[in-house]
């Protein structure tokens, strides 16, 4: 197999707080290949957003990457200096966030913001930058780019703002787009528009997308491969069809069973007992064991390793499958 576009190896991120070190990411490992849409899914506090930010060197303080490597196009980005990173951010890697209203600067027109971004990364004059910006606007399906260029973010709806963000993320020829909950703040009908746009850009531009989300439905309908995250590490990963429909890990099974769609109307939903851990207390053994329905003695003591399923690409980190061939 070819060299992955992005490869995260044994990533550990900690936040030093007064209450103690919060272990947000505990040994995250995954690869994303060129042209694929990879879903990173998990509940709040599982470390999915911080992982996305770490790729951009943007982990907010007091967060520190204590261990691990992030390879992008074969080079470790964590070795890059701040000046080099400025070329990467918005250059070869674009990123969009959950709340587009908060991501755009309210005092500048959207046109100004995108052309500044373009002139940062490309050696072009003002006219050319504007031309490129207008092209980007029409590429992401924004109507009437010319007049949109001079509007302020508050004049646009949430869906249009998110399109502007996507345009900015891709304006300088990004190969990887990190989309952190890109549709969570949007209505379902607008969510459908944005997801359709991402899939279309993927086909037309050969874009690679890392989709960070809590919504298994979104992953099921848009992604090729998915990694399910719990307590800062990946518990199950593989092609979407295998992870979601031949689910192995008790946590993934629990997540799917907890969806109202999974049972008949009005029937009792299956729940995962307890709450998402806060990352402060170190759980010995498997991090999921206090909430697991299939917990065994070994789970309390020993950390599970990643086991390959029949399909080599489908791995599960659970003691239930360790003897399996």
């Amino acid at each position, binding site marked *: 197999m070819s060299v992955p576009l992005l490869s995260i190896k044994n990533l550990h991120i900690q936040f030093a707080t007064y209450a103690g070190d919060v272990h947000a990411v505990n040994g995250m490992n995954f690869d994303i290949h060129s042209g694929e849409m990879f879903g990173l899914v998990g509940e709040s506090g599982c470390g999915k957003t911080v992982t996305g930010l770490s790729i951009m060197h943007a982990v907010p303080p007091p967060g520190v990457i204590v261990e691990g490597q992030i390879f992008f196009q074969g080079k470790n980005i964590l070795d890059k200096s701040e000046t080099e990173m400025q070329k990467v951010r918005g250059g070869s890697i674009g990123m969009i966030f959950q709340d587009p209203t908060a991501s755009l600067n309210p005092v500048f027109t959207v046109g100004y913001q995108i052309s500044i971004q373009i002139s940062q990364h490309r050696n072009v004059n003002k006219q050319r930058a504007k031309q490129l910006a207008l092209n980007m606007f029409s590429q992401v399906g924004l109507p009437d780019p010319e007049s949109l260029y001079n509007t302020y973010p508050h004049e646009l709806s949430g869906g249009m703002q998110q399109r502007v963000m996507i345009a900015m993320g891709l304006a300088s020829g990004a190969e990887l787009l990190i989309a952190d909950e890109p549709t969570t703040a949007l209505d379902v009908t607008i969510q*459908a528009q944005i997801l359709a746009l991402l899939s279309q850009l993927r086909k037309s531009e050969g874009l690679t997308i890392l989709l960070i989300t*809590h919504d298994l439905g979104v992953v099921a309908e848009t992604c090729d491969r998915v990694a399910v995250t719990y307590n800062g590490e990946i518990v199950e990963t593989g092609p979407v069809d295998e992870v979601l429909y031949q689910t192995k890990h008790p946590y993934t099974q629990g997540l799917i069973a907890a969806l109202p*769609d999974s049972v008949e109307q009005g029937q009792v939903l299956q729940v995962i007992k307890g709450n998402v851990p806060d990352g402060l207390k170190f759980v010995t053994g498997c991090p999921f064991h206090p909430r697991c329905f299939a917990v065994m003695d070994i789970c309390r003591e020993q950390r599970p390793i990643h086991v390959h399923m029949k399909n080599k690409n489908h791995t599960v980190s659970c003691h239930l499958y360790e003897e399996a061939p």
Partner: protein
Amino acid sequence: MNNSIVPIRSQGPLLVTKNLTKVFSSRSGWLNRQERHVRALDGINLTINEQETLGIVGESGCGKTTLGRVIMWLTEPTSGQIIFKGQDTATADKPTLKSLYQETQMVFQNPYISFDPRFTILQCIAEPLKTHTNLRGEKLNRRVRELLEQVGMSGAIIHRYSHEFSGGQLQRIAIARALATNPKFIVLDEPTSALDVSVQAQILNLLMDLQRDLKLTYLFISHNLSTVQHISNRVVVMYLGKIVEQNTSEALFDSRGQHPYTQALISAIPTVVKEYRREHIILEGTVPDAANPPTGCNFHPRCPIAQDICSEKEPMLRDISGDRKIACHFVVN
């Protein structure tokens, strides 16, 4: 275990709204005065029967939260009637209103901001009890502990503060607070939207158990169609302050005789379950400005089947088949 929601049909209406309208007005400009009138609710007629769950779905700005707040009299309606147990709440005298307030309660979307951070859990839950009952002292504390146990929390937490709990735990406490006055009717405004999936399931199960045990009536407001469909007997779909479709929740997903907006809304929900997956109907554009709604049918600028009549004449909510009511010129039985 089988505690599927019991469809209650024989019971009479508990709450009826007649032509309920709420207009929010704002002024701007000094020399060049401009007034904007947003019709958040535009002639809403609803009947909520005893012991049923009526679901309200719609996108942001469709008026679903305003509807919940107006029914609770947290926001005063501009016109129209809210009739609770046969009594018009606008003309009721003070003692009657107090007992009405006791029988209607609300649970809000964000549990983190619906508690006073300086109150202990005891104070939060005791507040409605002090207003509406004569319980004091140890009896009051005992009742608070009972309420907490009823929602699956330990009674020992009464001296702790709200910041010590997670979202799911707080939502349980909020439900305990709503139950404190023995209400008949609870407005649930997006009670699970701020919660993770695994916790959302716990809260939905709890709400269904409580409804069965305490014979409660719910108005369940959410933007999440699958959650609403799961818990409700009947569902109302709103668009720009108006009801576009009303149906039983089993029949809501039946695409025959469905409002084009409901159709698009349902098709747009991403789902893990393959059988529920539909060809996405991607609607053009966004919800129009409520201060400046389109002529005729509110939905016509985005509607895939719109014709000339849709921009001229407003469709009325009419019976289609069985329990289905639809406001569309073209949907027939």
